[in-house]
């Protein structure tokens, strides 16, 4: 009954935005576009080509000379404009859902500001480097805090990040390692909360979003494990950072906590069909791809699937993620073009074949 109610009334509140986001998805660059972009010799050429896509005059209206960082910031600006258009037109519960998307960026921003402050960087210098999707008022004050507790009680208690601090409060001094741990703890709480939020949503939203978030959780678990090799992070510490909403939970995570080298991680991954391919050795003859890239590829695949169904919020999340991947691709190509690394130019991740 709830499902019928939800789908029946979906279009009343969210139909416009869903249509909008599907229209915007149609503007995502295709394989042919990437092919053309990869042929460019200068950034000017890329600008010329991007003009014929949905980006239009995005790059040509700037007066400064083109640089990769300018391209990056323009693309990001574009994404933020689109997102804020969606957000300002959203009604609950879609607005909550969209807010959830921004929390991830907020966590990244907080951690970046903390590490920046530890390195005695000026806040004014750090702020422009924060992702604008995760911007909040109290951002600039993050540097004041010395311990996570202080960070929480003084600054972040008013922000939507506050509920994620439940496990993260500690009195140890913030250093770089601690900041990284804080990030992962926050992310764990965030993903779990987002996951349960999506699960509660009736209709297709849960069906679509849960696999995506589960994948995200597992990816974090893998990456935490791989990155912790060679550091003094113990297995038990590690396991407290793993988000407990993925497919790996609980057995896979326990095995991951015990893993001590890459081979063991691979052995864990081979138990799961979804992740087996990611850690497999590349076939001889094919190009080498890092497992991060393969995770990205898998993510793109999952996000594309979201567009196969109607009447759910997954399309919004997927669109933002796909667009982000697209920005990464364009920036990668632009980097290759400026540094004349033509051989690596094809290492982008195609979105729509």
């Amino acid at each position, binding site marked *: 009954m709830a499902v019928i109610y939800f789908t029946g009334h979906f279009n009343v509140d969210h139909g416009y935005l869903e249509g909008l986001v599907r229209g915007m998805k149609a503007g995502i660059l295709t394989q042919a576009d990437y092919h053309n972009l990869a042929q*460019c010799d200068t950034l*000017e050429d890329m600008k010329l*080509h991007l003009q014929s896509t949905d980006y239009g005059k995005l790059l040509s*209206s700037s007066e400064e000379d083109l640089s990769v960082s300018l391209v990056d910031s323009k693309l990001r600006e574009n994404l933020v404009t689109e997102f804020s258009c969606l957000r300002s037109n959203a009604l609950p519960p879609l607005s909550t859902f969209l807010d959830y998307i921004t929390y991830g960026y907020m966590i990244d921003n907080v951690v970046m500001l903390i590490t920046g402050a530890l390195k005695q960087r000026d806040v004014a210098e750090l702020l422009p480097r924060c992702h604008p999707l995760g911007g909040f*008022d109290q951002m*600039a004050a993050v540097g004041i805090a010395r311990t996570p507790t202080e960070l929480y009680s*003084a*600054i972040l208690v*008013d922000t939507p990040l506050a509920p994620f601090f439940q496990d993260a409060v500690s009195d140890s001094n913030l250093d770089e390692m601690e900041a990284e741990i804080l990030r992962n703890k926050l992310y764990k709480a965030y993903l779990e909360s987002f996951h349960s939020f999506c699960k509660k949503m009736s209709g297709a939203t849960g069906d679509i979003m849960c696999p995506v978030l589960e994948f995200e959780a597992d990816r974090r678990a893998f990456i935490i494990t791989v990155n912790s090799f060679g550091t003094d992070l113990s297995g038990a510490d590690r396991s407290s950072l793993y988000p407990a909403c993925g497919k790996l939970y609980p057995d896979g995570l326990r095995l991951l906590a015990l893993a001590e080298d890459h081979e063991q991680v691979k052995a864990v991954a081979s138990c799961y069909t979804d992740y087996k391919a990611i850690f497999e050795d590349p076939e001889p003859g094919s190009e080498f791809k890092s497992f991060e890239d393969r995770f990205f590829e898998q993510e793109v695949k999952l996000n594309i699937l979201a567009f196969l169904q109607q009447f759910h919020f997954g399309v919004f999340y997927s669109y933002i993620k796909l667009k982000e991947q697209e920005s990464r691709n364009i920036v990668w190509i632009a980097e290759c073009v400026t540094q004349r690394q033509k051989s690596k130019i094809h290492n982008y991740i195609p979105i729509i074949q």
Partner: protein
Amino acid sequence: MVFRSEEMCLAQLFLQSGSEYDCISELGELGLVEFRDLNPSVSSFQRRFVSEIKRCEEMERILGYLLREIQKANIAVPEEDESPLAPPPRQVLEIMEQLQRLEMELSEVAKNKEKLRRNLLELTEYTHMLKITRTFIHSRSRHEALGPQYEEFPTMETDSVSGCTGMQRLGAKLGFVSGLIQRVKVEAFERMLWRVCKGYTILSYAEVDENLADLDTGEISKSVVFLISFWGDQIGQKVQKICDCYHCHLYPHPENDEERADVLDSLRTRIQDLNNVLHRTEEYLRQVLQKASESAYTWVVQVKKMKAIYHILNLCSFDVTNKCLIAEVWCPVSDLANLRGALEEGSRKGDATVPSFVNRIPSNDTPPTLLRTNKFTSGFQSIVEAYGVGDYREVSPAPYTIITFPFLFAVMFGDLGHGMVISLFALWMVLTEKKQNKKRSSNEIWTTFFNGRYIILMMGLFSVYTGLVYNDCFSKSLNIFGSGWSVKAMFTNQNKTLQTNALLTLDPNFSGVFSGPYPFGIDPIWNMAVNRLSFLNSYKMKMSVVIGVVHMSFGVVLSVFNHLHFRQKFNVFLLFLPELLFLLCLFGYLVFMIFYKWLAFGARDSSQAPSILIHFINMFVMQGKDITPLYPGQMGLQIFLVIIAMLSVPVLLLGKPLYLYWLYRGGKGLRRRRGYERVRRVSEDDNSTAPSYEDDEEEGVDEVTNREFDFADVLLHQSIHTIEYCLGCISNTASYLRLWALSLAHARKFSTNNQFTLSFLCSNATLC
């Protein structure tokens, strides 16, 4: 408007380098030809004239900036009637330079202005802050003055004082931070201040009465002046950071009242000065923009044309010697002379030593369809194009649409008054079209109406005509010629019947009652009749079917012209004939019956008039011996017609595929290729100079395509066509009944409307 689309030919243009720009510019002004892309394999940024296009884009960017500034300053950009020609290449640099100079000047002035404005805002904020913080200090000092009256807490007082002095001795002193913050952020700001400094601060704030513009965004919003007093440097740093984080505008806090007054004084004079300077800057900016706005329109058009020319030049290929550009164009044969003239003109302008010239080249590609339109026919053409564009040299349906479309509309909309309203509206649009065209309204609904103004005019005029036929004017009848009916003859001396009966039946059999048909349209007396609706329904229904069948047959007949023109005589027999037979034997016969009934049955024997519907149904089931025939031999004829119609279906379905199959298997065909071969032989002679790079290859391709014949494919297409046609005939005939239905709806809607408004007015009048 022409019967067929224009005859086209493929032509090669040899544009001498040096004059190619002028030539293309000339051609562009004429709009005669369609260019073909000769380097499809080259990506858009590797073509020859990319740098020129980039320059044009740069100019467009500057122009965009310029126009935005002009719009911001509320200066109108005058538009000229004639669009300027594309500038010659040497003038381009001049324009470019001019634009760049303007941009620099503008951006400098704008930057200055921005700086001044910011300065001014800061000073205003500072003044506000000073004025308001004075009240804070004063209220506090008053508070202190009250202090000694509280005799109960003298120790506390001294304690805190001694505490202060103690801290002061340690190097900490009372610090003040004052500034402005946006109204919305105050609560969060205060909270965070409290949390971080653990209450070791005192915050007092008050709202500024005026709305101040934000320094960075220029948004007008409410601001709040605050004053934070705190102890110690450590907390001071934190306070500073928090202020930064909330984007507060901080200003130095004066030590005492005298300093405050001094600062306020100096601020006042500086604000005045700034206002002066700002005013002058704005004036200057306006002057610059005013000057720029005069030529802005010309520049915009010129740059656009220039960019278009370079895009076209990018489609051309170079010949081996690099001496000239080769372009391939589709051009109407009748315009070849104009094309030559334009090229000559272009070469003359470009001062080329060798003139550019045109060469016709043979081609097997299907040329593009060109239908010339004018402002009257373009609307109708676009209606046709909404359904599809015809093939090259196919019969164009647009000329007939000019009559049929408005007429079919009018059949549904028949009302003299409403038609008049529509035609007057359209007439107004037509008469003021020049003025409206200039306005370039961006309103989508309005432009739809405006572009269809001639269609609307025709629809209005036709509605007037059909309105006259229906004798409807705002759903009331006009009695112009005097009704042909009179009740007088029936009741000369029986006045009693007349008085006692509300309804009377006029019997046309009674001599004198019906004196002859109304000269034009429907007799106005029907407007009063109770059976008006059933009479009009029967009339309009039959009329719709008649119009529909005639319309459809006309369309089928038009296809003959296509078959004959494309030398496909077999299509006349295998497609057209069965189609026409099918339509006429079934629905043509229906039309015949309608007319027969109208002619054969008069007023006297109208009670014996049969139902056509029953007869038509009986025709299909081949029964009906039990009802009286309309005319002798009806059964035989009907069976004959049905059999013919049924026989034409298999002919339509199988005729063409089988014939083509037979041709393919070696039958002696109707030579279609002859025409092409002849053309080629002729043109090859005078084209000996033209590069024959594709000729051989194309010949081969042609051969193959002619040889290949997929029977299944043809059969499939033909069966689809057959099903579509036969079902179409039936469903379209039914669909034409919509003419009647909508006409009925229109008339009924307005007559009930009339009734309601009239009765409403009457009741109002009685109430008054």
